[in-house]
Every structure is written in C-alpha cells, then in structure tokens.
C-alpha cells in the first residue's frame, strides 16, 4: 500500500513522480472513460463541489440561526431535514437529518463505528480522525476519554450521549451558545462554530483562532 502522505505537510508537487496509487487511479479513470462509463468533466465537478462548495460553514449557519431564532430552532427539532433545507443545504448523506442539542446537562457525540457515516451536506467530508480506528473504536466505549484527548473535560454530572450512525439518519450536534455572545449577530455567531463542535468533540467558545 502506498503512503497517502497525510503525515507530511503535503503540497501538490507536479514535478514529483506519481505514487503507485495515484497512477492506479489514473489508469482506472482512463479505462473507464474509454469505455464511456465516466465523464471526466463530471468527475472534475464532483471534486470541486466537495473541495470548495460543501463544508462546515453550512452547519455553522444552521447553528447560528437556531441560536438567534427560537422558531427556527423549533422547526429544526421537529424536522431537521426540512429546516436545514430552508438554508439551502441538502442531499447525499444528509437526506434524513436529526439535530441533537447540547445543554448544561447533556453532551452529545457523533460517531460511525462501522465506517464513516457523517452529515455531509452540513459538515462537508469527514476529517481523517473521524474515519480512523482509534475514534471509531473508542467513542462508544470511552467517550469521556476521547473528549479529554480533544481537550474537553466534562463534569461527571453531565450525561454523555454517543450516537452511533448505524442507519441512514445523520446527526448534527447543536452546541451550546457560549456565554458572552449575547450581543453578536448571526454571521459573527456562525464564525464561532467549529466543525468539531458540531460533531461533539468541542464546545463553542467566544474567541476562536481558526475556522476549520
């Protein structure tokens, strides 16, 4: 098996020889295109969509809207798929959505122990760690240990709920709105919401350095 390069700080180096896997994919694509089974322009469009057009900023908007607008939050709880679609997000791996709300008493964490199921229309494609053995194995068995690794320690009295995405329901965590954010507008609130907070491995805090 060739390296995926994920541990290196990898940039696309066009002068470097293609890895075995890259070559194999190229060969497969040429074979399939030649047989008329795939359209390379459609492939380009799919790659671009996932690279540029679908990502956690979508889910952050849903969260911010729910924080600001109680009627929207209510619709989100009644029919998450429809409410999320109101903001323009829908589709593959998000056809049947559920929102699970964090409170001071309950903290939610989402996993797919069997593969990598993830609410793609609102969060984009999942990060490597979500799809990897350590998270998939431990999230259901030792969620507090997992959260601690992410730098999140919960009081013992908080109930941790782990959602194993075994069926086609896809879960979005509605994180708690951070204290001190009362005066902020929707855009500013959305900018606070990290992808990890919507999976359940982080809380939303008032100051944030990155927007992953």
């Amino acid at each position: 098996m060739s390296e995926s390069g994920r541990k290196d700080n990898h940039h696309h180096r066009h002068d470097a020889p293609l890895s075995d896997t890259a070559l194999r994919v190229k060969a497969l694509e040429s074979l399939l295109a030649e047989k008329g089974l795939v359209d390379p322009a459609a492939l380009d469009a799919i790659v671009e969509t996932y690279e540029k057009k679908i990502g956690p900023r979508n889910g952050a908007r849903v969260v911010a809207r729910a924080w600001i607008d109680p009627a929207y939050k209510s619709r989100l709880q009644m029919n998450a798929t429809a409410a999320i679609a109101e903001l323009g997000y829908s589709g593959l791996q998000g056809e049947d959505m559920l929102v699970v709300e964090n409170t001071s008493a309950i903290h939610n964490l989402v996993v797919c122990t069997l593969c990598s199921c993830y609410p793609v229309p609102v969060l984009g494609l999942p990060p490597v760690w979500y799809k990897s053995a350590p998270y998939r194995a431990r999230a259901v068995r030792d969620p507090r240990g997992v959260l601690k690794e992410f730098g999140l320690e919960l009081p013992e009295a908080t109930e941790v709920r782990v959602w194993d995405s075994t069926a086609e329901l896809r879960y979005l965590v509605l994180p708690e709105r951070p204290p001190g954010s009362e005066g902020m507008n929707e855009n500013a609130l959305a900018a606070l919401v990290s992808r990890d907070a919507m999976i359940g491995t982080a809380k939303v805090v008032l100051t944030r350095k990155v927007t992953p």
Partner: protein
Amino acid sequence: MNGIHDMGGMDGFGPIEREADEPVFHEAWEGRVLALTRACGAWGKWNIDKSRSGIEQMPPEDYLRASYYEKWLWRLEKLLVDAGMVTREEIERRNAEMKHATGVS
C-alpha cells in the same frame, strides 16, 4: 459479517491523531476515487449497502493498513469487476501500460 470494520469497543488503536487545517483531499487521486465511485455508482449495478459490504470484505490486515481512500479504490475495483463493468485483467493491463509509459517499472 463479523469483520474488522466492526470496531466499536475495540482496544489497542492508540491515540486519535489529528491534523491541523486538514485539506479535504490530501492527494488529487483521493478526490478522483470519490468522484469515480459516484460516477460508476450511477449505473445502478450496486447500492450503498452493497458498496459498504464491499469494503467490509477487504482482508483485515489490508483494511487496517490502508488509508481511507485506498479502501475506496480497493472497493471500487471490486464493485466494478463484480458488476462486469471491467475485468481484473483490463485494470491490471492498463495499470501496467501507464506505469511503463510514465517510466515507472
């Protein structure tokens, strides 16, 4: 099946490794494999359940060692061959031709 993919509760996998500012695709071929899988799936020879089943049939040692999209590539080849859309010989022949053409032996 009671496969290696059924990992909930297993011990021994070590810490959760995270990458800051992780790109959507680490290599161009990863995006390509995803797109190819969608495009080939449109022919209706399999469904999402059959495709998940495909990955589950990977030999356990390969499953654990492979990166996520390496699993997808393995699965796509298997689905295509099982569906009769390409043959294993065609895949290997084209792969060998391309290796030769790019000077890799």
